[in-house]
């Protein structure tokens, strides 16, 4: 029992450390990749090859003055980035990032919790993140921030439904909502991206929306709303939003890999955990690539895109899958 608790604590610490490191280097990766797409170099001066850039950025953020605008709602203003950060970090608790390993006679599954409704939990937690944005935008007492917050709400209601529907097919095919179970089902049936190609694409689109990245970066829309919902945030609190955004990206990549690309599965010459991370990095690369290539949607266009295109398609495909799985077809 004690051993299990110790293992759990170690796992939590490890996960947070990996995620924070992952955040820092995802950010660097993104900046270098954007440089690559844009014929530039990107950060390469701080530390060898720019490798210490994220450390410098993080330290600097901590050292920066923490400001609160006059007239802001101080409690909510402080709470909002915490919600965003928490929501982003907690989703990863249910994502298995490797096959269970055997150590000291214990079977340690490489996730922190493995509830049977893992997928639902992941969805629930990740949609909590929008509260951080909405509340932050509202509490800042800044019109740009407020607009950013409002946009975030409009955005979440237009893509969350399609997102939820798009994974229903995966559930039907694997007969479980447990993420480990889904991975194992793919071991038997093959990766789901091919049979579920349309839901996969829909999930990809909505995952970008979930992370508030181009072309769905409306809540922060730099050229329109200055910095959107976090315009007024500085120092650590601003950093927390940043952390949340990037960790969200890692998380969504993890979900995509788990749901559609067989999680940690892969040829055995590399350990499963490495396969998992390779796949996640590829997914992140795609995220950055999309950011470099596409312009931003407009508010109303996004809503009609979510409601009129994504949702019906996701629904149809879901019905089709259901018919197929149940043997009607």
């Amino acid at each position, binding site marked *: 029992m004690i051993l299990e608790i110790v293992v759990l604590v170690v796992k939590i610490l490890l996960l947070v450390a990996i995620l924070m490191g992952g955040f820092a280097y995802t950010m660097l990766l993104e900046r270098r990749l954007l440089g690559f797409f844009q014929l530039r170099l990107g*950060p390469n001066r701080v530390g060898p090859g720019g490798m210490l850039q994220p450390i410098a950025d993080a330290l600097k953020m901590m*050292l920066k003055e923490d400001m609160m605008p006059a007239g802001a709602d101080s409690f909510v203003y402080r709470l909002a980035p915490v919600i965003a950060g928490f929501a982003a970090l907690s989703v990863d608790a249910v994502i298995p990032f490797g096959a269970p390993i055997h150590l000291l006679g214990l079977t340690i599954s490489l996730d922190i919790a493995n509830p049977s409704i893992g997928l639902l939990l992941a969805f629930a937690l990740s949609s909590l993140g929008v509260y951080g944005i909405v509340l932050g935008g509202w509490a800042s007492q800044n019109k740009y921030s407020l*607009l950013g917050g409002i946009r975030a709400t409009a955005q979440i209601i237009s893509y969350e439904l399609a997102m939820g529907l798009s994974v229903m097919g995966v559930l039907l095919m694997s007969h479980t909502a447990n993420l480990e179970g889904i991975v194992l089902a793919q071991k038997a049936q093959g990766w789901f991206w091919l049979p579920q190609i349309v839901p996969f694409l829909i999930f990809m689109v909505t995952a970008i929306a979930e992370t508030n990245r181009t072309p769905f970066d409306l809540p922060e829309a730099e050229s329109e709303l200055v910095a959107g919902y976090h315009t007024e945030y*500085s120092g650590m609190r601003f950093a927390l939003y940043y952390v949340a955004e990037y960790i969200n990206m890692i998380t969504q990549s993890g979900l995509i890999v788990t749901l559609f690309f067989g999680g940690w599965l892969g040829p055995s010459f590399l350990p499963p955990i490495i396969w998992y991370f390779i796949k996640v990095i590829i997914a992140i690369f795609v995220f950055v690539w999309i950011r470099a290539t596409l312009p931003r949607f407009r508010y109303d266009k996004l809503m009609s895109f979510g409601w009129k295109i994504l949702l019906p398609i996701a629904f149809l495909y879901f019905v089709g899958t259901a018919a197929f799985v149940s043997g009607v077809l």
Partner: protein
Amino acid sequence: MDVSNPVSDFTEADVSRNILATRLDALKRWAKSGSLWPMPFGTACCAIEFMAVASERYDVGRFGSEVLRYSPRQADVLMVLGTITDKMGPVLKTIYDQMAEPKWVICMGACATSGGFYRSYHVMQGIDEIIPVDIYIPGCPPTPEAVLRSIIMLEEKIRQQGVASAKREFAERAQRLHTHTEDASVTSLDPPSLELIEFSTRTDDVNLPWVAELTNRLGLAAIETATDFRGDFTIRVAPGALIAACRLLREAPFSMDMLMDIAGVDYWTRDPRFDVVYHFYSSTQRHRIRLKVGVSESAPLIDSIAGEWPAANWYEREVYDLYGMQFRGHPDLRRILTHDGFGDLHPMRKDYPPGLRQPIRYPTEAVPAAERSPRGEMVPLDIHPTIMNIGPSHPSMHGTFRLIAQVDGERVVDADVELGYLHRNFEKMAETHTYWQTIPYCDRLNYVSPMCNSVGFALAVEKLLGVEVPDRAQVLRVILNELSRVMDHAVCIGTNVLDLGLMTDYFYLWELREQIYDLLESCSGARLHVSYVRIGGFSDDVPPDFVEQVRRILHAAPRILKDTETLVTRSAIARSRMQGVGAISQKDALEFGFTGPNLRASGVAYDVRKDHPYSGYDQWEFEIPIGRQGDVFDRYLVRMEEMRQSLRIVGQAIENLPEGPIFWDDPRITLAPKHRVYTNIEDLMRQFKLIMEGIKPPVGEVYGFSEAANGELGYYIVSDGGGRPYRIKVRSPSFAHYQLYPRMVRGMDVSDVIATIGSLNIVAGELDR
């Protein structure tokens, strides 16, 4: 150990503790210096060079500084890029105050450092009047290398600075401010020569085609005089007949459909003291007419024609602002360019010293109690629908525009714009400099494509002088002008799609621009403000590998344009953001004096290069693309096609580049070649006279116009026969385009507001002058 040495009082523990502290401190300093996120406060041409610094050739990103934060809360270093006017001062100060500690300031360019060569009534003579500066970068504009160097210097400064000195510096910030005394070089201006007064009130009745018609319809008393000088028709009407005349001009046979410009002129020893000059153009008949009305000093009252010609609204406001004329019946007669500190002073009047600044009020309270609504009243902060100030310091307002929008949710219900944040007094400066010295000022009008402005100016002065430049110079002007147009359109499209959230294409287009920069640099030595054109030709011949360089650009450009095509034209999202947004009808476009790509996108094929060919444009084959809807997408497509057509012109011109002189060899106009100056007394005298006194064109007035990147760029020049222009009024295309903007954005979403302004390509330098 020496006991008397105070250092020895430290114990081992002290030392180790301090080592830890110093280590920690060094780490902190390392972090701060390695992660300088800039907040670009770009207002003018220096911002364009900063864009180059952020782009692929220089890439400020290598220092980790490509994370541009437009929210002052999140930025570490405030980069002041460009001229700061007194009107902008309070904005800059507010932004600085809003930044979180620790913060630094880099001040780029001569203007921000010291006012540069704008020793004028509206320009702050150095930003250290209001905020402390850490690094100054000299240059006008500084080279991108210098900007990178400034970041390295700031990093060094931070790394070397101990805690104590940082604290001291913080405490001493206020002492690092300097007040700049009034510029001593302010000269009083010469009164107009008698000849000019006579010219401007000439009574000879020239037999012009329309004078008889106008006289017939308005009565003999209405028409005072008429002149024809270098093909420009000027009709002086009696003040009482102004409105009737303006109304009449719309009808056949005049068929004027565009009001191009309204200028004020101050003949300060004459009575009536002022002239208000109206420039009309008929896009169907392709002719122009200039109306003049005298206004006396004691009762500076004149009828407003804004009822007849809506475009007159802003032009009249400008005349009121700068000359103090009261326009009777004007819907909204307020200052437009200068700040409110001017009270009842009007700086373009000849008796106003060019360098005399007026005190400005800086905000003292953190949160003001009221704010300005689009209607110009002060309203409480919590009014509904709420008021949103977009700009002047806003990433998409290009530094200097301010849109005061009343928004209901995201929808704009009412809007007004405020301009003048970059009013750096081109016109006043021109009056105090010789024609030659005016060329560098011209470069800085539309600083995205400087060549077009100075070529336009040279053409106008050449018209005044009645000379034409040699063939080779003409063809070179065409080539450089067209490449400048390409460069301007590239930036316009790049920033427009950047505003839509598409980052990458901007960098591709910037590469095209860099290649043209290389060419310009090899010709003139400068990247941006080339000052290469001279009245009568060029300052120097092009380098021997010019043709090759141009060919290389011609070779590289199509691929870059194709990339843009793929990323923008074929992108469904981009199209959905641009199609049907910000449409301007043909009627509105003409009514508000739109020219250039913006007018052509609305379906009017007016292009000075075709309709009034100059510099031998008629020998080259090219087409004028026109749009149908006049929306953002059409403007984009028209610009894309114009770039192709420009390259086509360049391709023809470069293969047919004649040999020969590159300037008009006339002792009264151009300098002699240097070797002759050193060997021969006549040429030495010629050099001396031209440098000291300048070119002296004949007495008269012309309106010289050319097709700049943004549309018709006109210079209305009044010459009194002296070495300095008596008056230059710039007819800038952006001013006309921006006037319609607040009307256009009503009913739009905030996102569309942003998309629209980028597509109009308003450049503050020529908007505010």
